[in-house]
């Protein structure tokens, strides 16, 4: 028996063992490297049970995290859905770290294991290691370390200040997680050790009782009736990162609470690229496993039976119910992403006249180079805006429904025809733009002179207003952290205040 025969015997048996996984990883890594030219972090493949997978879900894949009831709730929710058969578990879960940790379900068949290794350990891994969002905004080297630090820190706080008080801070910080992200500054990469050093420094600063806000008070005595002039405006520029602002400037917050806010902020920052590249990331991983498994077949590592099972799973992943199906639950990011990547390859290899008009830069280029370029330099909204082709729009029969408040009808905005392509593309891109989901809220002013009141402004976009109940509850959380009254004004595009929420 040749070596290849041995591999084939292993891969085509439905039962896998440790040796099979090692062999699979070896062959798949080679194909990923030589054929698809993937550069990846080293892999750490972990075989887990379904319960452990649900655990992993609850911590959004992180091997460890600080304790909080919210994770318990997610666990209970998922577990109950899973045991009732309402939800299936994914075959794998992978996290952006170096080494890249992926969890594989123990009850996967051999074929599934190979698919998963190709998908997660090559596809996702390469995406994490090369996409600019991840490179700029996360540090795969230190995340696991940092989470260990975070857990220990929170546990220490629980001991010292009581679980309830810690939970109170975490609850409040979690409410602002979406507003704790820096989009313009690159966070420094810190390891657990550096983090501890930094903390020590922080304690020192705390001793000296330094605070930006108080600092402004005694040095410049105000004239009794001087209008608060622009030069005394604080902050000078509106601040989008509310959590950061509170962490830095909340007048009376003890240092340990600031540190907890910082931890939540770091976690939010870590997951920020994940949310912005869902379609690309899944699309690319699917594109990768599709090519690797086919290559395995071409090279004779697997047989027809294996391929039948693979095709069944693969098409299951790509199943996209139509809008009027009872299974419809939104656009499937795997399908959308995979279709676009496959289309990029097609345009490079067999361009049509239409492609020549739409994508002159792709026509005739090396498809692998182009795929790499796209994978590295875009995120979902820009990816769709630049690469969603008329052919994919036609194939998926995409169309837009316009839902306007105060109208009794939906309007069909654009369909998969010549007139509609650009509109569909723009509108779909907007759907993946963060600003369509997360309200644009900024810290605009602090009353330094009398009340220390914090003013927030919600810049209304497309007439989308805040959900009042939740907004009030969130303001209460800010109130708790800030320690003084908080007011939020919702301004429309004319700059007129439409409504005011307040936490006194």
């Amino acid at each position, binding site marked *: 028996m040749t070596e290849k025969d041995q591999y084939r015997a292993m891969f085509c048996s439905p039962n896998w063992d440790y040796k099979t996984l090692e062999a699979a990883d070896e062959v798949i890594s080679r194909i990923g490297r030589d054929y698809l030219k993937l550069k990846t972090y*080293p892999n750490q493949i972990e075989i887990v049970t379904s319960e452990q997978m649900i655990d992993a879900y609850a911590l959004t894949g992180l091997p460890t995290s600080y304790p909080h009831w919210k994770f318990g709730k997610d666990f209970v929710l998922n577990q109950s859905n899973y045991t009732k058969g309402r939800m299936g578990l994914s075959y794998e879960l992978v996290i952006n770290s170096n080494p890249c940790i992926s969890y594989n379900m123990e009850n996967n068949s051999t074929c599934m294991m190979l698919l998963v290794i190709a998908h997660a350990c090559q596809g996702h891994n390469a995406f994490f290691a090369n996409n600019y969002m991840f490179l700029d905004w996360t540090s795969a080297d230190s995340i696991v370390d940092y989470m260990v630090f975070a857990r220990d820190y929170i546990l220490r706080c629980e001991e010292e200040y009581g679980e309830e008080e810690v939970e109170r801070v975490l609850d409040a910080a979690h409410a602002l997680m979406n507003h704790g992200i820096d989009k313009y500054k690159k966070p420094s990469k810190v390891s657990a050790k550096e983090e501890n050093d930094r903390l020590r420094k922080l304690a020192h600063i705390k001793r000296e009782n330094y605070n930006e806000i108080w600092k402004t008070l005694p040095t410049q005595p105000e004239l009794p009736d001087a209008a608060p002039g622009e030069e005394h405006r604080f902050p000078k520029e509106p601040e989008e990162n509310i959590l950061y602002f509170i962490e830095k400037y909340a007048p009376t917050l003890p240092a340990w609470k600031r540190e907890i806010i910082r931890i939540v902020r770091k976690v939010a920052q870590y997951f920020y690229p994940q949310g912005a590249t869902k379609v690309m990331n899944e699309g690319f991983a699917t594109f990768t496993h599709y090519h690797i498994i086919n290559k395995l077949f071409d090279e004779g590592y697997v047989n027809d039976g294996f391929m039948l099972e693979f095709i069944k799973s693969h098409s299951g992943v790509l199943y996209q119910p139509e809008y009027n199906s009872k299974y419809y639950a939104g656009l499937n990011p795997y399908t959308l992403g995979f279709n676009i990547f496959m289309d990029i390859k097609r345009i490079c290899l067999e361009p049509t006249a239409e492609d020549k008009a739409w994508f002159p830069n792709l026509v005739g280029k090396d498809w692998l180079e182009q795929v790499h370029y796209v994978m590295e330099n875009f995120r979902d909204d820009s990816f769709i805006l630049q690469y969603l082709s008329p052919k994919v729009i036609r194939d998926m029969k995409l169309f837009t429904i316009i839902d306007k408040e105060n109208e009794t009808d939906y309007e069909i905005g654009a369909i998969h025809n010549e007139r509609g392509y650009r509109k569909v593309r723009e509108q779909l891109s907007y759907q993946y733009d963060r600003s369509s989901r997360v309200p644009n809220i900024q810290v605009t002013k602090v009353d330094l002179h009398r009340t220390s009141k914090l003013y927030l402004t919600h810049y209304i976009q497309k007439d989308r207003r805040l959900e009042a109940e939740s907004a009030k*509850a969130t303001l209460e959380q800010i109130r708790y952290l800030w320690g003084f009254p908080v007011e939020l004004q919702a301004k429309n595009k004319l700059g007129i205040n439409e409504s005011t929420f307040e936490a006194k």
Partner: protein
Amino acid sequence: MSHIIDRRKNDKGKSTGNRQKFLKRVESQIKKAIPDIISQESIKDSSTGGSVKVPVRGLDEPSFRHDPKTGKKYIIKPGNDRFNEGDRVPKPKGGAGGSGKGKGSNSPEVTEDEFTVVLSREEFLKYFFDDLALPNLVKKLMDSTENFESRRAGYTKDSVPSRLNIKTSYRQSLGRRLALKGVFEKKLQKLEAQLASTADPEERLLLEAELEKVRKQANTIPFFEDIDMRYNNFERVPVPVTSAVMFCVMDVSASMGYHEKDIAKRFFTLLYIFLTRQYKNVELVFIRHHTEAKEVDEEEFFNSRESGGTVVAPSLKLMDRIIRERYDESWNVYCCQASDGDVWSKQDALECKKLLQEAVLPSIQFMAYIEINSKDRESDLWQAYKRISNDEDFSIRHIYEAYEIWPVFQGLFRKRREAA
């Protein structure tokens, strides 16, 4: 290079801590749900774990989010089969959601309907019996420490060879040898120094002889000596009795219908679950009675349809006899009697009272009498029992509807404040 790890064996229950934090948060809601479980579901199931429905109120995680009803939204969907640009489609009634024309809810927010928290048996019992305690539990436990158990209690220097602990003995020997060696070494050094510094031949000879002696001693430190020996030590420790027996006495006369028996059964089961939590070993004795009393098995107890007139006293007599025959002082005896209160004659009721007072109550821990009856009339049995019930070791209660079981049970077994 990749690294493959089998995680299946470790890391189980990683979320346990978070899960408990979450349960703590919904504790009040779980507690509220417990009476429902008892009155609705088969009680046998609740002993094995059961599930508790917890509405998600109070579990909301607030955030700034768009009101889905406002503004202008573009929703991209796949599979257009009939629409053209500019078509108008009526919105489904009742806002978002709804089904009309396949326009399902497209809001990205996942709505969390009431979801069911599945509690493990342990968790379930914890909530179930929180704040409850067996009456007189401590008293009897202290009384009856008659069994003894051998437990390891360190080492002793003197015992039989079969209990020799070689490892510890060796360690002792090693320590002793090291210590002695050090002493001799020092002595040798001192002597050698003296030898080197003196020139007197007589003294040199003396010193050399001394040196020789000490060297010999240093080389012949015995490996084991008696003082090294260590033997395992055992102690006799009194073991508290952890057994209990519960008598289920039920009236099965014609007047006890399905409903009455069902209530009785639920109450017995509750008590049983409760006892199994407190004791390692709980025995059950089932006694049913109409005109005569009989000890039966569980199956027959609840299902047999045999019936007749009601005479209660024989059942208590039978119980008394069984206690004397089978359960000595070391047992914790509990009794629960369920009846609709109907008796053949006043005489019977009085006899019951006398029996209880004189024979049964002195020998048992606690007895509960449950009258499955609407409260508006007091039966003869109730009237007779009322005089001797003291809630301390004999409680009587009315139950008629299933939902009353839990409050009554709770009332009976609520931890009594020490002040009382």
